């Protein structure tokens, strides 16, 4: 217990980094996922193929490899840098890898959501003369989003837990690495592990409840 109190400020600072990573990646992956799903249902075969290829490649690659590659491959070898400050650069590389990875799951969830929109909706949209993009934006996607709030919540919860894998990108500011670091100092400490696990649960469980509540509230009445 003493260990937990002694290292609490470090761990809290690390956990805050997890939260920051989650927030930025959530926004980016939702945007990228929506673009991906629009590509996958578009009338243009090239865009469909590009979207499908991207999803299949990235979704089947382990996140550890994605993140390690974004740091060692993209940044160190191929020279992609976001900032001269190493910690800022590391943060954005993790965001890049995590968003690119999570977007595929967002896209798959949304595609399942599009499948729940009744045929008549799309037919009606076409009948009143909406173009593909208009019917997607005004008719299909709003209903698809509302149908997959709960799965999107699961995707986001998984993404928050995945922020711990940032270690693989050599980004050592987040809480899982700090926990490992304190273990190197003090030996294994059960209170520290439980404290950090509870911190993650304190973020993920409310998201589960919130998205469940939202899903019920916003369900499309049919």
């Amino acid at each position, binding site marked *: 217990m003493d260990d937990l109190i002694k290292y609490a400020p470090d761990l809290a600072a690390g956990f805050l980094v997890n939260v920051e990573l989650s927030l930025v990646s959530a926004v980016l992956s939702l945007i990228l996922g929506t673009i991906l799903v629009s590509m*996958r*249902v578009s*009338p*243009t*075969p*090239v*865009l*469909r193929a*590009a979207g*499908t290829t991207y999803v*299949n*490649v990235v979704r*089947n*690659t*382990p*996140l*550890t*490899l994605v993140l390690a*590659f974004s740091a*060692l*491959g993209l940044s160190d*070898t191929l*020279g992609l840098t976001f900032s001269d400050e190493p910690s800022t650069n590391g943060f954005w590389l993790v965001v890049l890898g995590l968003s690119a990875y999570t977007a595929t*799951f967002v896209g*798959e*969830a949304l595609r*399942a959501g*599009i*499948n*729940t*929109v009744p*045929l008549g909706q799309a*037919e009606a949209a*076409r009948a009143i003369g909406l173009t*593909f993009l208009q*019917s997607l934006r005004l008719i299909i996607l709003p209903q698809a989003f509302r*149908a997959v709030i709960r799965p999107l919540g*699961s*995707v986001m919860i998984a993404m928050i*837990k*995945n*922020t*711990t*894998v940032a*270690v*693989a990108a050599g980004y050592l500011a987040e809480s*899982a690495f700090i*926990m*490992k670091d304190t*273990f190197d100092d003090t*030996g*294994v400490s*059960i209170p520290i*592990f439980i404290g*950090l*696990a509870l911190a*993650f*649960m304190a973020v*993920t*469980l409310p998201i589960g409840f919130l998205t469940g509540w939202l899903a019920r509230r916003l369900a499309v009445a049919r």
Partner: protein
Amino acid sequence: MSSSVLFDVPGPRARLRNHGLTVIAAAAVLAVLYFVYRGFDDKGQWEGKIWRPFIEASTWTDYIIPGLLGTLKAAGLGAVCALVFGAVFGLGRLSDHRWIRVPAGAVVETFRAIPLLLLIFFLAYLAPSVLGSGDYTLIALVTGLTLYNGSVLAEVVRAGVLAVPRGQSEAAYAIGLRKGGVMRLVLLPQAVTAMMPAIVSQLVVLLKDTALGYIIAYEDLLNYGFKIIPAVFFGSLVPAAIVIGIIYIGLNMTLSTLANWLEKRSRRSRKTSARPIAPPGVIGLSAGAGLPEETA
């Protein structure tokens, strides 16, 4: 083009527009590919000498295959243990006894909520202090994978048993079977068919998660491919990432294809009265509407 829901079979003007869009999209894709090619070229990533190791047999026999075996060993052990764990706790949550149901539920919910890497770090440091010094990376990895994926599988098992229509268990009780008999002879055989696709999908997740072993220095495919190969063959980092990436993708897509095939089979199976349950975290494709399945 066969009709999709979102756009009509195109008329002459729409066809022209679509052709235009296709050209623009193709140009954009080519531009991205060219950008990647130039990026590689600028940093000398197309040079033969950094790709050469991957056409030599010794690279495969010394590094990639041992790494792959390490990954498959962790995945195999993890899969077996997770299935046992999932069956025990999934059925535990369905127990009539409160003192079994509640603890089983608590265990499942807890391990689903903890980040897997956090759990693996903890186990990797806990094992030596409890069991004495030694190499516990495999044990930590497999235990972590078991606890997390087992908890997810427990939910799959529970959902599978609950997906069997109630008439089945009522009929089984009516012919005089006891609780154990109802579960063993009537519910489980049908539930297994319904949950097979979801189980295989979760095994894909498990296989991907073995790559976390890289972080605790377990000798898996990622470790051999991304740490050892670039250290031995200087400069081969990007080619190594591409080669092991293709191996991972191939393995996972094979498993995913198996899951899809199982789902189709169990959908038309007459051995079960339960609908196949959705893989965890994925919404079921309702029959209501929509887009034709894409040909990937």
